[in-house]
């Protein structure tokens, strides 16, 4: 049997599974339970653009019923006017890493008890609130398309967050730690995360405000990873380039940073942003976005690769059964050859920024902003006063030239990235990085 006329291509992605959440707030188990999800997305490429159906509670249908769904999606595609083409791409699945211990085999009672130990570890004098969450999401994904490809995989992501809030004389500060992984259950013996969150919250009560302005900045590996993600990653996404909404459009081959700088996105890396194949069934592999300071390649879906070129497909991702978007996965700055000590010494006077409270970018304007959890003033190469609520903003096309040194201690950190209303798991990483002439935001004054 054949599909209705006028359909050039279709694919179906069905995502079902369970999520388990445990929430402990000041010693009280607020919730500890499991929910169920089952959703599918059918994309049909008509004579011009896409017609897409999203179906809750999807069940594989007979060919006749499936044909009716194709017909409905084709009717939606009839209002499109853009001529979408799909680039050829290698379609295959790689293996999901084997978990050390499958979280699904552990009772929710044990998960709750282990999380409670982490939450209790955050109990220090002056800590007025402790909150810990465990999040586990097990997804079974099946993909098939009109070219006869059919893949499926199962992946379980799990992890925890712990928050501590400290208060003294009307001043409130927080410390926050998290660990999320695709490698299996990771709640055992993690009390140090609770203790660290509490120590940071209490320490920040005595921290000063950073004085804003231009200065030398050392970014720790977590924040430097967010820097790579916000300052470069988003602007390299092929859909933004195609729309004319990225300052990196038409910049291939241009030098935008010093020759020590290489920035990579690799969905095949077994970190939190890992995907065995992308949301279009395309094989995943490493893309060097910036190579030795030069714009090298963009991240692409099959559609944006056909429209823009320069790069590979395999970077289409989706939150559950949402429409695929070009997204980052595991994004990092490659190691340089400096030690942390050399970087601190080279900084001389400036500020060390640690941890991330997130960031945002306007890729068309080329302006980004991100916020550190805390920092230390650097004086004569040594960390001195602790500072809080310090952020950094900059211009993509000029800030990367300010990277003076990259360390040799790259580390990856898990997180979530939002775009187009979809949040997907990612990891960001980098070594310590020394940045010259950076714009630091803070409310401190002389």
């Amino acid at each position, binding site marked *: 049997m054949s599909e209705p006329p006028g359909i050039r291509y279709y694919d179906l992605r069905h995502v079902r599974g369970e999520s388990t959440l445990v929430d402990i*707030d000041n010693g009280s188990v607020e919730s500890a339970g*499991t929910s169920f999800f089952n959703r599918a997305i059918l994309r049909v490429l008509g004579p011009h653009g896409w*017609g897409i159906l999203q179906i809750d509670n999807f069940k594989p249908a007979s060919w006749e019923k499936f044909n009716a769904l194709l017909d409905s999606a084709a009717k939606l595609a009839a*209002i*499109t006017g853009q001529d979408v083409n799909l680039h050829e791409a290698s379609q295959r699945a790689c293996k999901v890493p084997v978990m050390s211990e499958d979280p699904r085999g552990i009772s929710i009672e044990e998960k709750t008890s282990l999380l409670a130990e982490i939450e209790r570890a955050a109990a220090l004098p002056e800590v007025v609130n402790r909150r810990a969450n465990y999040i586990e999401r097990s997804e079974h994904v099946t993909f098939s398309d009109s070219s006869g490809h059919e893949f499926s995989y199962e992946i379980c992501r799990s992890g925890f967050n712990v928050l501590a809030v400290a208060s003294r004389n009307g001043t409130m500060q927080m410390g926050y730690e998290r660990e999320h992984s695709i490698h299996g259950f990771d709640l055992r013996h993690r009390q140090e995360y609770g203790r660290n969150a509490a120590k940071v919250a209490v320490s920040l009560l005595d921290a000063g405000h950073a004085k*804003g*302005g231009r200065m030398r900045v050392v970014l720790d590996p977590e924040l430097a990873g967010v820097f790579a993600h916000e300052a470069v990653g988003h602007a390299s996404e092929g859909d933004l380039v195609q729309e004319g909404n990225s300052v990196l459009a038409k910049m291939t081959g241009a030098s935008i940073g010093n020759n020590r700088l290489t920035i990579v996105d690799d969905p095949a890396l077994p970190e939190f942003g890992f995907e065995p194949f992308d949301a279009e069934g395309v094989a995943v592999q490493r893309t060097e976005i910036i190579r030795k300071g030069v714009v090298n390649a963009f991240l692409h879906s099959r559609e944006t690769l056909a429209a823009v070129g320069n790069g590979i497909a395999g970077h289409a991702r989706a939150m559950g059964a949402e*429409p695929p978007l070009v997204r980052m996965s595991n994004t990092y700055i490659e190691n340089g050859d400096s030690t942390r000590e050399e970087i601190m010494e080279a900084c001389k006077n400036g500020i060390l920024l640690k941890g991330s409270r997130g960031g945002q970018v*306007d890729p068309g304007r080329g302006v980004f902003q991100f916020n550190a959890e805390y920092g230390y003033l650097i004086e004569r190469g040594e960390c001195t006063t602790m500072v809080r609520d310090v952020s950094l903003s900059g211009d993509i096309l000029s800030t990367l030239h300010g990277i003076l040194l990259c360390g040799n201690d790259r580390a990856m950190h898990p997180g979530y990235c939002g775009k187009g209303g979809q949040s997907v798991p990612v990891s960001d990483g980098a070594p310590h990085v020394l940045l010259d002439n950076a714009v630091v935001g803070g409310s401190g004054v002389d």
Partner: protein
Amino acid sequence: MSCSITRWWVAVAWIDRILKEGSRRVEEVEVFYGEGTAISADLKRRNVNLAIRSDECGLGIRTIDKGRIGSSTTHDPKRWRECLDAAIASGRLATPQQWGGLPRQSEFSTETLCYDPTIPVDPKTASGLLGKMLEGAAEHPAEVTSGTATVSSTTDTVANSNGVRYTSRHTGVSVSLEAIKEHSTGSEFAQSCYNDIDPYSVGERAAFFASQSAGGTDIQTGKYDILLSPIAYAELLGAAFIPALSGRNVHAGRSHLASQLGESIMDSQSSMYDDTYRQKGLGSTFWDAEGMPARRVEFVRGGTLSSFAYDLRTAYRYGKESTASALRSGAHGGTGIGHHNFIVDGPRTEVADDRVIYVHSVVGAHTANPMSGDFSVEISNSFWMEDGEFQAPIRSAMLAGNVFAMHKETGGISEEVRQIGSLVLPSIRLISQRIIGT
């Protein structure tokens, strides 16, 4: 038990089976069922790239037994027994708390607050909205990069074992457009539950901000008067101020405002309140997500902090009264504390007569410190403004401040207000705020 829109009494009859079965096993049961359809169309530059129809349904079950609250959700109503089992199992692990019972049925007007039967939920309507935005965008020399139009219709039912059976219908229309000129971007959006938005104006404003912001100049670091547009104000309020009004955060030790009840926190003639029955309010409702009769909540009256927001769970635990502030995040989400239509009110002034820096939006509001309220964000589409007129654009700068302290440093609010999601806000003038220039 399908994803198509069913008649309300069919939904309630089916839900009765869950309530009956659940009541045999636990003291109280609450069921939420939502279903609906949304149709969206997206622009890539000036052409429609895709059209999406999304059929959603979600079932949420909450159980209460001896003060232990359990919950679970599913996309598949036929799996309600599994969902009920999971909710009861979840309750067994929960720490017991004071509990005074789910609400009983109240009588409400049959009027619909957020429903407009004249909104056609079809691709042609979405396509037409995009076309109007493109016409508006042509008013200024900027390129459209992307845009979206969505029309939707949903039906939500909340029922419980104490006899509550409420069903409400909602419609929605929303549009947004992004534009660029050189490296200057602009965006605009509008949303309503009625067929009354002006897509032409949305397109025109997006292109205006992109074209007018081009060629901006630098600014020196220093203190300046700032005029936050309703969008910029909403971004900062939502990141740090509004979470501090949640009763749960207050009693858990996560709210900067916890100890300030009865104290002055803003100008003595200003107020903040939740207007649940607001005409055409996006969050207008007769009942909250737990079936409590909705009511006006005065958070700040005459500049004085007067109340926090409570759902039943938090109210029972801390000996307070529910303010009917329980909200559910979609058909497949859990309940939390929020507001329905959050209003900032006060004497209106000509906020842009004297020279001021106008800030249309900010980059990075979500990185504000939710405990202390401190923020330092990049400003977007910012201009010098005088006599209410946009003047020279500002290229790039950061605004550093504190979302609580800034309400004591205000220079008035504008006559015009704007609805941004469930917030209804004026522009607000802030005196002597710190700008970090480039």
